[in-house]
């Protein structure tokens, strides 16, 4: 037992070091890409100014202020420190520190993406489990056709079709925005709109947030459940062939009990790793979906920055997304070690 614990601590330390190295490499990667594309200090300075109209004096003062003339390794060192202290510079459009904007937008996206991923895992796990139970029969085929279409459909198509069907045609759900714009939003305490509304006890706003969230969340979940279903199905098919499942059937347990009691517990393990990977997909899906539903989170902000060529914002968002994916992977690794007793703690 003691040996197990020290193994786990060693494993934890190793994973933390790995994650930190990956973080620094991520910043290096972005830094290198920027400097390959914008090789001269002048080109960099133009990006920081963010408009086509500038004088040479302005250009020089920007080069001076951001130290763009210094050797690359000095610039890189400063850049790493800046990133880890959350200093991404001034937004060239809003003229406020980038971090202030991201502070506002990240929780909004994180909130609905996490809900969407939870939903997607639930749908995928059940669909995959049922498909494996009725392997080669009609339910298996129906599920396969559904997830293939959902997987191959472009996200923007899913989102707009749902918007037309449920919001414009049936008029059961709101089509645009995060909440009813007539309502006064509660004071931002945590930044997460749902939690804030709950803390303030503003249940009408909470309700409005929820109904506005349904369509974007469904769109992301439907776009992503295909892969979960596929992996869950093949992993459950393998489990169904195991002797302990046959034993469970022989003990006279019903289909449902075998599926939920025995198969799910064992087939779920690959889903843990997969879900961390899908976090990245969901965030990029959010860029499109927030644009379609005018859901003003990070994806919408990124899309706006693209149309207004706001480089500082784009780079900051890219790094932040990268960092959050690294954290998600780290969490998945830990969870994996906890869930799967066979998992090797390297």
């Amino acid at each position, binding site marked *: 037992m003691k040996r197990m614990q020290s193994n786990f601590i060693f494993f934890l330390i190793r994973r933390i070091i790995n994650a930190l190295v990956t973080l620094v490499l991520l910043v290096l990667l972005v830094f290198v890409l*920027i400097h390959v594309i914008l090789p001269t200090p002048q080109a960099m300075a133009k990006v920081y100014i963010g408009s086509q109209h500038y004088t040479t004096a302005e250009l020089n003062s920007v080069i001076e202020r951001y130290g763009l003339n210094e050797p690359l390794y000095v610039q890189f060192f400063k850049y790493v420190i800046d990133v880890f202290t959350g200093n991404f510079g001034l937004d060239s459009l809003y003229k406020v520190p980038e971090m202030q904007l991201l502070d506002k937008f990240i929780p909004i996206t994180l909130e609905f993406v996490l809900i969407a991923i939870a939903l997607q895992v639930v749908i995928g796990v059940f669909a995959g489990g049922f498909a494996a139970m009725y392997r080669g029969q009609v339910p298996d085929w129906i599920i396969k056709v559904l997830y*293939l279409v959902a997987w191959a459909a*472009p996200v923007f198509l899913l989102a707009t079709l749902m918007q037309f069907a449920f919001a414009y045609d049936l008029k059961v759900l709101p089509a645009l925005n995060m909440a009813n714009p007539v309502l006064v939003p509660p004071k931002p305490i945590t930044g997460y709109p749902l939690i804030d509304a709950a803390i303030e006890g503003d249940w009408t706003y909470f309700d409005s947030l929820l109904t506005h969230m349904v369509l974007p969340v469904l769109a992301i979940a439907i776009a992503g459940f295909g892969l979960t279903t596929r992996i869950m199905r093949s992993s459950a098919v393998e489990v169904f062939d195991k002797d302990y499942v046959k034993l469970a059937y022989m003990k006279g347990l019903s289909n449902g009990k075998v599926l939920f009691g025995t198969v799910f517990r064992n087939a779920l393990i690959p889903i843990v790793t997969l879900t961390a990977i899908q976090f990245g997909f969901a965030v990029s899906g959010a860029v499109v979906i927030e644009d379609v539903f005018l859901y003003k989170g990070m994806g919408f902000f990124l899309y706006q920055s693209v149309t207004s060529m706001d480089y500082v914002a784009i780079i900051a968002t890219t790094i932040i997304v*990268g960092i959050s994916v*690294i954290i998600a992977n780290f969490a998945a690794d830990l969870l994996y070690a906890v869930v799967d007793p066979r998992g090797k703690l390297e």
Partner: protein
Amino acid sequence: MDIIKKALGFRGDVDAQASTNRSSQNLSTFYYLRHKKEAIVGMTIITVFVVWSVIEGSLQLIGDYLRKPSLGWVLLPHDPIASPNIATSLLPPSLSYPLGTNFEGQDILSRLMYAAPKDAMAAFLVVVSAVIVGGLLGIAAGYYGGWIDEILMRLTDAFLAIPGLILAIALSILIGPGFNSVLISLTIIWWPVYARLFRGQTLTLKYRGFVEISRLFGVSEFKVLFKHIFMNAVDPIIAYMALDFGTVILTYSTLAFLGIGVQPPYPEWGSMASNGLSFFPRAWWYTFFPSLTILLVVIGFILFGDSFQDVISGRVVD
């Protein structure tokens, strides 16, 4: 001595066959694929898409070369980039315009067919270059191990951390909009998954008998790496590649939807679908047919890749 023993011990028939009988193995793979309905549907879609893209693509290239762009649409029913015409604006599907017309009065079918080679080329270039880069780095990491492995894998993790779509947005904005910048940015970001896959395959292969024996007999390192490791590692990767062609097309059209990529007046499936959305549902054909095209092509690749994976992993029984 230990190595020799191990090598001789490993020299079972299975291992020897695994490395030599590749041609017969490939034949049986395709034999099974021919008898799977999904695979046939997938292969049909892919064949139509690829053959048409090659024909139309070469016509466009020749047309560009001879400075006669109209050569690019000799096979199409209408001029895909005709100047805007109010009289034919937003016509529903009919005999002369099978899939209707867009707001500018251009034929949607012609535009879809004209845009196909670009999608095919993007998918092909991005995936093939990703296999080459990922293959080199992944095999090196798996085969040499140690520090090389550690560094290469952390680099791969760093690349994998940024979702493809977002890095592509950032890069193509920095490089400047256009088809080429999308191609460049997708190529830069697409290899890490392949590096992971190749590394995993290499790790399982490098202690197999035929690899150790070839090393023992002094076969050059390059030949060991290419003939025994790469060629044996590539099967599951081909299955993944087939799926990936579809993913590239999806990402590419999503970028076009966001306004990054091929610039007007030239057609692109994703941007056609996105332009059509403002006329939905009144002129439903405007966004419906481009989206359906993307969906069909991607499903074709997924079906093929899926059945291919089933066959090579031995799950072909049902």
